């Protein structure tokens, strides 16, 4: 379970998160929607300690992410994250991209890491591309590789930050299908997305992020189909 309690986060004088509270249960899929620059990416990076916070706390299965003694490298094994930019390691083949962390972080042997990597790549439909370099992949394939790379660590949670935003429209579908598959398998996911219909279909709950706080949150169909706050209504009008 991820518990976010009254989190405050600033970049210099700019306060981006102004007291965010949120709890995500095991097995839940939560989508976060909201205008650009509202702090959605920042929130995800606070959850796995890529960004420090200035107030409040975040607990992942009871571990206080930002407590001084927390081993972030260890914590991050349990939390996969996939970013908007594709972030392949360009000097490694697709298989090596996915093997690297299991080998170096989890200490698996070459054979075992290879099996883990191949299994996860097949799972996202890249079984034919194992020995190819990322530069030879389409954006959608690179993004699926990034998902496989995160899954290869067997995380308990997956965070997705607008993973389809940088893709050509015809490639969005294949990545969304991969996300849908993960949600069907019961993966706990936080999904920052601009794909409103997709969010409505796969998520249990949707949170509307506005001006550094969660402005409205509720079951997916209600927040998207019958929003209560004027700002949510305006936002949905602008993107649908």
């Amino acid at each position, binding site marked *: 379970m991820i518990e976010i309690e009254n989190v405050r986060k600033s970049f210099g004088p700019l306060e981006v998160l102004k007291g965010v509270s949120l709890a995500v249960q095991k097995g839940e899929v939560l989508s976060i929607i909201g205008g650009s620059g509202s702090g959605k990416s920042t929130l995800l990076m606070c959850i*796995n300690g*890529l960004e420090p916070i200035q107030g409040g706390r975040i607990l992942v299965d009871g571990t206080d992410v930002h407590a001084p003694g927390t081993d972030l490298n260890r914590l*991050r094994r349990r939390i996969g994250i996939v970013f908007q930019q594709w972030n392949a390691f360009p000097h490694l083949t697709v298989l090596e991209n996915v093997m690297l962390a299991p080998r170096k972080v989890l200490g698996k042997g070459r054979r075992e890491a290879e099996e883990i990597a191949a299994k996860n790549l097949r799972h996202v439909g890249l079984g034919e591309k194992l020995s190819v370099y990322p530069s030879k992949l389409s954006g959608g394939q690179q993004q699926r590789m*990034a998902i496989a790379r995160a899954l290869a660590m067997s995380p308990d949670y997956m965070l997705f930050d607008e993973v389809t935003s940088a893709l050509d429209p015809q490639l969005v579908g294949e990545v969304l299908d991969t996300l849908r598959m993960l949600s069907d398998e019961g993966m706990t996911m936080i999904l920052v997305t601009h794909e409103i219909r997709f969010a409505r279909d796969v998520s249990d709950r949707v949170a509307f992020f506005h001006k550094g706080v969660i402005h409205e949150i509720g079951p997916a169909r209600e927040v998207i189909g019958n929003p209560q706050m004027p700002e949510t209504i305006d936002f949905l009008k602008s993107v649908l």
Partner: protein
Amino acid sequence: MLETNLGWNDILFMLKGAGVTLSITAWAMLGGTILGMAFGLARTTLPWWLNAPLGAVLDVLRSVPLLIQFVLANSFKSIIGVNASAFTVACVMLSLYTASYCSEIVRGGILAVPATTRRAARSLGMTYRQDLAHIVFPMALRVALPNWIGLVLSVMKDTALVLWIGIVELLRASQIVVTRLQEPLLVLSVAGLIYFLMSFPVARLGARLEKRWHEND
């Protein structure tokens, strides 16, 4: 038609000089690259109050003519009573000089690695060192290699300056032969050819590696 007194003994003498040139180049590149990597990495990570003085020292090494550095170091060595050969002085000074250039090459390579790629590595649970070893260095190497090859070639030619502290390397050996035979055009052409033959494989190797990497880009 071409009458010459240039004999095998002279060429052998020049090849011995070329051996000295190669050996100084090799030591300078070895020392300069190790130091350059350390300095280059330091320049991307140290806080400004350590970074600024380090940058200043490297700037001095880059901007004072190498010839002056050789002569000063060689004299300074006698003053403080260090018992080092001119060859050692040459290797040490050229290493430092090489390091000052190499540090910039390394720094540029490291800064060329996108922050987002490094963040992706850290998000998988990799430590700072693992990120450096498995992501940053291999990626930086691809950016830095052409410049590093250029540095090798330029250092090889810069070694000629050590003749000023009494080392007989290829250029000095050629001068000696010229003085004796009074055939500067031929002798210097041979010297130039030897320099070329030493540089060419390095340049080729660099081009080969670059080509191989670019196939994956």
